[in-house]
């Protein structure tokens, strides 16, 4: 029997109803009944202990929603989430508490995810003393100093406020905050997006170090494929709330199968000037307001045929680690 995966996501769906407001009104006028934004449409995923799983996709593909549902920040509409075999998506606030300690999140924008009115000491000590009520004040102080050192910040700065730090330093504080409760799973939602290239490297190295030191498991969400290649063990490519392809990072970059993955990889801005011409996709990401019939990608795909337009492709195991949802691959038209 297969061992229980560290985290398992089954048939996860999330849709946001559009009930009030101008847009709901407009869409209802246009004949949409009961308009919903379908952010996630049946996601199946398992995360293994100790791996770095990257989720990539364009704006609006549901990658941030996936992170939030996984962390319990928003409730899923359908489906189950298991943490080490135990179902966690239907727990009450109090039942969920022990899991919050082992699952932490790093957000995209370190300018908004740190409370501007709390000093770094307050930001870091709050989760420490909240989750370990027995610690004395000295022990909390020590822990905070240790945390700051571990992310290369001078503990003497602990009484400073977030605005006194640069973007890279703030993101390191966010990492320290996530590590403050000794989690074993960290969800990082575009942690590099607001940082400069030279600072991105610092933060990425730090995250990699922490993974080795604490045997962390990462779910790393990004739109930057060059980072993925460097950071990930496995990659999930998402499109319009569906999984297109799951593959080992190496396999994905050398022999991507799904037409969307191929287009994404070809579009990476490269230094070796125009060695690869980007594959042109027709049109743009459609709105997640109504579920497309058939394959989510069919409207932009060069290989789409009638089957793609009508039938939703089911993810297929191509080899041990590669999973692809595409009729063209299945029929070997590609």
């Amino acid at each position: 029997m297969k061992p229980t995966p560290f985290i398992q996501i089954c048939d996860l769906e999330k849709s946001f109803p559009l009930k009030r407001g101008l847009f709901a009104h407009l869409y209802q006028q246009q004949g949409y009944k009961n308009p919903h934004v379908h952010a996630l449409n049946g996601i199946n995923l398992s995360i293994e202990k100790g791996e770095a799983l990257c989720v990539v996709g364009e704006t609006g593909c549901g990658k941030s929603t996936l992170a939030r549902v996984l962390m319990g920040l928003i409730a899923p509409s359908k489906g189950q989430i298991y943490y080490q075999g135990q179902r966690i998506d239907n727990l009450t606030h109090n039942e969920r508490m022990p899991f919050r300690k082992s699952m932490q999140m790093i957000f995209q924008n370190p300018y908004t995810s740190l409370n501007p009115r709390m000093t770094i000491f307050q930001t870091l000590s709050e989760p420490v003393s909240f989750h370990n009520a027995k610690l004395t004040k000295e022990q909390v102080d020590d822990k905070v100093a240790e945390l700051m050192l571990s992310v290369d910040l001078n503990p003497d700065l602990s009484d400073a406020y977030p605005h006194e730090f640069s973007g890279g330093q703030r993101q390191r504080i966010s990492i320290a905050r996530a590590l403050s409760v000794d989690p074993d799973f960290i969800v990082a939602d575009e942690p590099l997006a607001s940082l400069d290239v030279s600072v991105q490297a610092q933060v990425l190295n730090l995250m990699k170090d922490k993974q080795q030191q604490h045997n962390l498991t990462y779910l790393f969400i990004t739109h930057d494929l060059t980072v993925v290649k460097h950071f990930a063990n496995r990659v999930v490519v998402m499109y319009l709330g569906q999984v297109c392809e799951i593959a080992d990072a190496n396999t994905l970059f050398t022999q991507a199968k799904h037409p969307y993955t191929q287009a994404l990889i070809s579009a990476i801005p490269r230094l070796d000037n125009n060695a690869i011409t980007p594959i042109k996709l027709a049109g743009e990401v459609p709105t997640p307001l109504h579920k497309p019939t058939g394959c989510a990608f069919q409207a932009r795909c060069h290989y789409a045929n009638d089957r793609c337009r009508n039938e939703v492709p089911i993810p297929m195991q191509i080899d041990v680690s590669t999973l692809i949802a595409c009729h063209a691959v299945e029929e070997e038209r590609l």
Partner: protein
Amino acid sequence: MALLEVKNLNVSFGAKHNAVPVLFDISFILHRRERIAIVGESGAGKSTLGFALVNLLSKPGHIHSGTVKLDGTNLTTLTSPQMQKIRGKRIAMIFQDPMVTLNPVITIGKQMVEAIRAHTSINRHDAKKIVLEKLAQVQIPAPDIRFDQYPHELSGGMRQRVIIATALLLTPDIIIADEPTTALDVTIQAEILELLKSMCEENNVALILITHDLGVVSRVAERTMVMYAGRIVEEGPTLEIINDPQHPYTQGLLNALPQMTLAGHKLNQIPGSMPSLSDRPNGCAFHPRCQYAIEKCQIKQPNYIYSGISTVACHVLEDMISETSSSDSAFLNDGKDVL
């Protein structure tokens, strides 16, 4: 004669007695039909430079000294109405976020017609014809339908296409594009860059591309200027700079890219971060983060020297070049080994 000649441009923020200089001695030349890129991290002053070129610095920013000459006319001394005739007509600008650039309550067609009529005496009917033609040129499907739509009805990539079409309406000499693809997804970004490049070629327009992304630069620009803390530190042909960066900062910037490191290895990082312009280190602004820094770097601002590949401002490199005429020194090849 060069199309645009910038000479010793100095820009400061604040009143005279406590002005903070933000751009130092910027000099460069842009030829007709040339595409150049200005690269740097946030806070390097690249957008400020873009605004300074068209005299759009918002208070308290002002041009302290230096000249910006367009076909021989010094733009820094023009009055505001004179400058308005140049902006949009001879120098057009494209900004990062198309949703902010377009007026949300006016149809795109009307906005574009207005842009034409602000500078010429073409009547509405003919202006509409030009607009439709330009919209078709930037590959917008069904331009006559789009003409009467509002910006919110268009997707991000489509909006940026409209902006490019608007910039091209009066066939300017120069387009300044400030991070034109940062707000877009990768697949759309590739398309927009391709479009921008081909549109400039077709219409004989010179391009100044401001970006932080070296991958974008290599796709579009012929020449590249690297900025650090308000100063150009390296300038030369794009491919040469990417293949053989000379300035330690350019080397660091390139080496920090994830694609420069084998998967699973540690990324090469530049320690520290860009200084804020109000407390810029003495001498070479990069010296606190530079692994090659010598004593001289802390005291004196380096001069520009030609390394055989690009023009660089670096003391260490200057010493190296004067000591040995051969360019095979280990330092010069530092970037190449990694590539």
